[in-house]
């Protein structure tokens, strides 16, 4: 259980779940949920490399903290955009949001 490969496999499976969600779901909030899963898979990769390979074990933790900060900012701005979109369209289905379609 204490191997780099195991953690990388877990992270790859999580990333694939996130990708399936992004491509399959139609609710915008569900897509945001899937994106958070993918971000977490990336963070898990950082932490695994940090534990098993990196020259200094503080750096991976710092990068994971930065990813969390970016994810918080992204979630806040995305949720407010969803609310604005809901007021405009009365729906958060991504297939209804076609006004900007080129």
């Amino acid at each position: 259980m204490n191997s780099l490969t195991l953690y990388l496999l877990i992270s790859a499976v999580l990333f694939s779940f996130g990708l399936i969600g992004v491509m399959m779901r139609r609710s915008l909030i569900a897509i945001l949920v899937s994106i958070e899963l993918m971000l977490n898979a990336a963070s898990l990769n950082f932490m695994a490399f940090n534990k098993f390979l990196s020259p200094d074990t503080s750096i991976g933790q710092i990068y994971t903290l930065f990813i969390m900060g970016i994810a918080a900012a992204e979630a806040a701005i995305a949720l407010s955009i969803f609310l604005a979109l809901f007021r405009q369209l009365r729906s958060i289905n991504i297939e209804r949001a076609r006004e900007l379609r080129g």
Partner: protein
Amino acid sequence: MSGSILSQGFLPQVAFIIVVGLTFCGAIIAVFHRNILYNVLGLALALAGVAALYVFLGSLFIGLMQLLIYVGAICIAMVFAIMLSRPVHLPKPKRKISKIATGVFAGLLILGVNIGVIYKTAWQPAAERKIDWSVKTIGDFLLTKYVLVFEVISLVLLVAMLGAIIISRFNGRVSS
């Protein structure tokens, strides 16, 4: 917090398997369930599982931060957004089979590529490694070497919060 204590013996292995199973269950609920509220709760379960994995990887601090920021803040914000938007009891449109097929195909493709890369690469640890899990070192790095990134991230967070307030306050009065 050292990881080597947690990685030996029978009981930690069972705990590890349970944690990984919970993480995957949460991810499956988060992706495949029809009810959006269950999606967010499944995401919370998966994120808590990842936090436990961080503890297994030796960093209690990052695990607690994950619980605090993701489970405590982001998931709750999503629940608020669900409450403010479409009611969950309305009938939902059926899923298109082509969309499901495309998604699953892309996911399996990426998974295969990732597994191939993981097994083909010869991972080599760095020549000399500093094993230091203390929070003090993280703080030192954040205020010396990575201080610019730290400040830029705080600025990004500030701008994002202001933007979120402004975007969600203008309601239809502004013509497009």
